């Protein structure tokens, strides 16, 4: 813990993440205007007291839209990551522990997920079962699942071969207790890093899809969608594209800084995976 406190990138990343999460949680209280309210008389108004970043092509408050956008971006990314955590960790660990047939099936599923390029997959799923937030989350989850499943499996495999697992077994520990009490705490630091980096990735991916108009219904204040709206007037009013772009940039940076910093801080003490 002390090492983490002294690690600059962890603290900076964590600081930004806290600010962004607070923005997302208190978007309702912080935003000066309704992010969805269209008022054509306010089109392209200059920044002012009541409209801190001005209004967009439909007269909606840009600042409020950015705050609410944090909700969508973070919310969806967390949803995808939680889905991945609760599916990959139990199944990956169980697959390694059971071995043989189960492990092969698990790896096949991972391979299927990894073999399909995410963009193609998302477009295909959207084409077949229709547009919508649930479908977007499902298809993102599906295309990321294999990568994380494989990582969980390899972490577990490394730990299961270690002496303390043998020792626990000789002490009469059951299979579940070995996995949950012995192995899980040891692979946890590695997984935190993995999932922190993954959140940054997912935010980018979801913003990318809504930039393409996939997933979220139009008009929602998602950062990628806002970029898409600003695209048509990029030369006349570039600031409308810059604001959401900066937001995505800062958020992804914050999660990556946090993840990278964690990795370095934990690798020094011999915990986690050292890539250097």
């Amino acid at each position: 813990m002390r090492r983490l406190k002294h690690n600059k990138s962890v603290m900076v990343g964590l600081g930004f993440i806290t600010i962004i999460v607070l923005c997302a949680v208190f978007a309702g209280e912080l935003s000066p205007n309704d992010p969805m309210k269209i008022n054509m008389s306010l089109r392209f108004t200059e920044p002012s007291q009541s409209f801190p970043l001005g209004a967009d092509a439909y007269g909606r408050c840009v600042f409020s839209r950015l705050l609410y956008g944090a909700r969508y971006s973070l919310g969806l990314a967390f949803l995808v990551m939680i889905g991945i955590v609760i599916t990959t960790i139990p199944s990956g660990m169980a697959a390694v522990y059971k071995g043989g047939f189960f492990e092969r099936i698990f790896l096949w599923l991972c391979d299927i997920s990894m073999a399909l390029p995410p963009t193609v997959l998302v477009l295909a799923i959207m084409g077949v079962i229709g547009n919508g937030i649930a479908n977007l989350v499902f298809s993102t989850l599906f295309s990321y699942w294999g990568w994380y499943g494989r990582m969980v499996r390899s972490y577990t495999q490394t730990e299961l071969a270690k002496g303390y697992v043998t020792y626990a077994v000789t002490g009469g520990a059951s299979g579940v207790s070995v996995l949950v009490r012995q192995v899980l705490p040891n692979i946890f630091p590695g997984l935190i890093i993995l999932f922190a980096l993954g959140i940054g990735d997912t935010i980018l991916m979801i913003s990318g899809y809504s930039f393409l108009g996939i997933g979220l219904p139009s008009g929602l204040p998602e950062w990628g969608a806002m970029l898409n709206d600003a695209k048509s007037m990029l030369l006349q009013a570039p600031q409308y594209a810059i604001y959401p772009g900066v937001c995505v940039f800062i958020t992804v940076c914050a999660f990556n800084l946090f993840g990278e910093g964690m990795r370095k801080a934990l690798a020094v003490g011999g915990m986690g995976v050292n890539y250097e």
Partner: protein
Amino acid sequence: MNKDTILAVRDLSVRYLSTGVNIEKMTFEIGRGKVLGLVGESGSGKSTVCNAILGLLDSAAVQISGSVRLQDKEILPLFWDEREKINGKEIGVILQNSMAAFNPCMRIRTHFIETLYTHLLCSKRDATLYGIELLRKVGLPDGQRVMRSYPYQLSGGMLQRVMIAIAISLNPVLIIADEPTTALDTGNQAIILELLSFIMKEYKPAMLLVSHDMDTVTALADDIAVMKDGRVLEQGTKTKILHDPQVGYTKELLASAGLMEETDCLRSGM
């Protein structure tokens, strides 16, 4: 079978389906309060014997036949759910590399609690107090501090003692000591050996002592079995093995440990 016999291994054969050591037809018995020393070079199959007794061998990778009886109960074909009741409770284990044998993110206290809680329904507080008492017995008087420590904060010798304390915590009938002194320096080796003989006197379990070092084995064992390439070459009481070795390999081992005059070896045509 004698009623004092704790562990009886009959015709134990282990065949690795890929490659490696094969154990062929091992037979031995250990009585209450007795120590059987299993000596042999690396790769002779000593650890495989331990793993077979503990049920640690992967049934998909090995073929096991024969019988292992612990107090008249056949334990070789047991499944995991029954195994869990025996390992730790009736069989205590001391492994060789104590630095690697403890979970790095669990305090020593948690290791005690895990072991005790798996087999007895006792509270965490009782487990800790009992653990401190055991630590005092194995020569770690500041039990409170040891209990609070993480494994990396203790030395190898201390961890080995903690492991012995955990092994005796449930008063097992059999202790398997797989190279208990190998990873330690000479001073600590002597201390651990002394401790083990104290345990033998105090608790009177049966002990299977595995080592490649003739010195260690002769210090503790009542009977000695010499293994090479998965076979028992020679087996008998300590006195017999020490003073009247029949096989050339035993003589070599004794000579290398300085327990036999070099000239004796030469004279016997080696």
